């Protein structure tokens, strides 16, 4: 019956209760939506990075990271790739010949990372083929030395599809060599930095320049399930003690870092909203108690003990918060779901996002756990906000409360 009384009590002052419920719902909606947007932004960047460059797992010679020299190849690389492909968790594996070099056109030059790839195998681990905006992904029309470059680099070098550019690099023996390549495709990812500093050629052409035989510096792995990354990495590390196995978090530590910052920002943001809500709730409940002093005095007089009185006020507060909270969460879920279908285009405000590697069309996401977490936080806020008004009520002296006019 305490539940019944509490529930009916919050409807005694309909407008006041509705206002605070609306405030709670609005606060949650705003907070959750902004958090969903930033989460969407981070996720898209993560997915894009995983898809176009870092994949789920990478394997290198342990010294390769320090100085990317041609000699730090993965021993028996091709055999390793074949055996990795047989692992049940692995969806695809591809080897890359990686070398740093210079690319130059008649107009300009630029330092780049050159990835020598096997186009068909690379398709399985990287979606760079989807990002081609001009030309094509290694089609058969160009037989000799085709190259894929990014849009930003193309602009810088003032070149186009079918233009000829020169790659200069150090071969296996330490000699400077150069080769002429023909642009067959121009890609554009969400990161203009990547587009400026990454080029792709065929592994055979690069090996020819380097005077190497199928040198594999990097193996990229895509798993069936991202969540399996850590356990698979652990197994591979014990099986391949002589090699360096890195998960996407290790390859691009800034991703995890950004994720962390986003989470913290979201928490602070939620905290501010909740504190504001707490004051609203405290105010509403204090009003509710002050206008019921005589009734509360009567309840204490006829035998309602402090615990029950406290519970009643706590329940009233919880009902207020829960009603607003549930409405706010449902509306947020609906909004996130709706906007996630079309995406929200921020390019009007933020063309610069691309420079930082973020997409301008954002698809908000919120993990289901987050709704739970927020629900719990609202619950705790409600309880904390109930404490002061409840304490006020408990301090009432029945004889005086009844006398109050």
């Amino acid at each position: 019956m305490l539940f019944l009384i509490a529930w009916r009590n919050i409807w005694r002052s309909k407008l006041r209760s509705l206002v605070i419920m609306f405030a709670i719902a609005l606060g949650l909606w705003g907070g959750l939506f902004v958090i969903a947007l930033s989460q969407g932004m981070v996720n898209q960047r993560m997915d894009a990075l995983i898809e176009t460059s870092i994949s789920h797992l990478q394997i290198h010679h342990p010294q390769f990271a320090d100085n990317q020299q041609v000699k730090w190849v993965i021993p028996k690389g091709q055999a390793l790739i074949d055996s990795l492909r047989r692992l049940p968790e692995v969806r695809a594996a591809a080897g890359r010949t990686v070398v740093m070099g210079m690319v130059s056109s008649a107009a300009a030059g630029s330092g780049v990372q050159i990835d020598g790839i096997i186009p068909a195998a690379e398709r399985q681990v990287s979606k760079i083929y989807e990002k081609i905006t001009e030309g094509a992904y290694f089609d058969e029309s160009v037989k000799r030395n085709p190259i894929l470059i990014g849009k930003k680099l193309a602009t810088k070098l003032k070149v186009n599809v079918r233009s000829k550019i020169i790659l200069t690099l150090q071969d296996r023996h330490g000699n400077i060599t150069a080769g002429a390549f023909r642009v067959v495709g121009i890609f554009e990812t969400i990161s203009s930095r990547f587009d400026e500093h990454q080029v792709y050629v065929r592994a055979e052409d690069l090996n020819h320049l380097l005077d190497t035989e199928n040198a594999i510096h990097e193996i990229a792995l895509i798993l069936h399930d991202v969540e399996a990354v850590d356990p698979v990495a652990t197994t591979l590390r014990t099986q391949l003690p002589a090699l360096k196995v890195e998960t996407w978090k290790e390859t691009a530590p800034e991703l995890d870092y950004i994720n962390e910052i986003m989470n913290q920002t979201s928490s602070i943001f939620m905290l501010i909203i909740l504190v504001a809500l707490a004051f609203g709730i405290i105010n509403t409940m204090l009003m509710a108690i002050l206008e019921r002093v005589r009734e509360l005095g009567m309840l204490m007089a006829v035998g309602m003990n402090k615990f029950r009185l406290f519970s009643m006020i706590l329940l009233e507060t919880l009902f207020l918060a829960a009603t607003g909270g549930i409405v706010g969460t449902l509306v947020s879920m609906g909004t996130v779901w709706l906007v996630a279908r079309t995406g929200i285009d921020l390019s009007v405000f933020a063309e610069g996002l691309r420079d930082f590697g973020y997409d301008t069309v954002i698809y908000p996401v919120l993990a289901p756990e987050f709704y739970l977490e927020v629900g719990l936080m609202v619950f705790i806020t409600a309880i904390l906000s109930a404490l002061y008004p409840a304490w006020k009520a408990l301090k009432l002296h029945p004889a005086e409360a009844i006398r109050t006019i």
Partner: protein
Amino acid sequence: MAVIRTKDLKKTYNSSMVPVHALNGIDLTIEKGEFTALVGPSGSGKTTLLNLIGGLDQPTSGKVWVEETEITQLKGNDLIDFRLKSIGFVFQAYNLIPVLTAQENIEFIMLLQKRPKKERQQRALELLNAVGLKDRAHNRPGQLSGGQQQRVAVARALAAKPKFVLADEPTANLDSTSTANLLDLMAELNQQEKVTFIFSTHDQRVIDRARRVVWLEDGRILSDETKM
């Protein structure tokens, strides 16, 4: 044996600049089955005395016993529980929980006493019947007249089967017909169910109905008459 005994009860309010001596040594004994009126001019200490007898306030000095229990020794939740089990209250107004129906208001007291649901419902209906409001069981206080609300309050006060019922000016807000009806009801319950009633009043018609009249003035008992 006496239901209520007070010994040299004094109450001084210090909340204002000048201390107010509301009660100046009250020795009063109430026996089981009494129908007693506390009478006196405004400010004579009627409410103060009822509050002390009902355990709603602490005396400055003196003692109050309800049967064997010295209630002036009880504190906090013990005192609240004692009131719940042993004392019925009827106030001048705001007796009922506005969001509950008449029946729910009566059941509420028994719920606080943790009585089983069946018993609660049955007794609530019996009591509503006794106060003549069976057909208003599902009305909320706001839908009842002042007199009807006071009858529900009497029914509520009896729900806990208390040792006695304290009523502070229960008829102050009622017209003469409702006043008469309420007094008829209380007198009937007193005679048939042996419920002990102590009530305060200004109203001569109410005074006339009391069997014992205790006159207060300036916090002292001026006279104490029992009609035969």
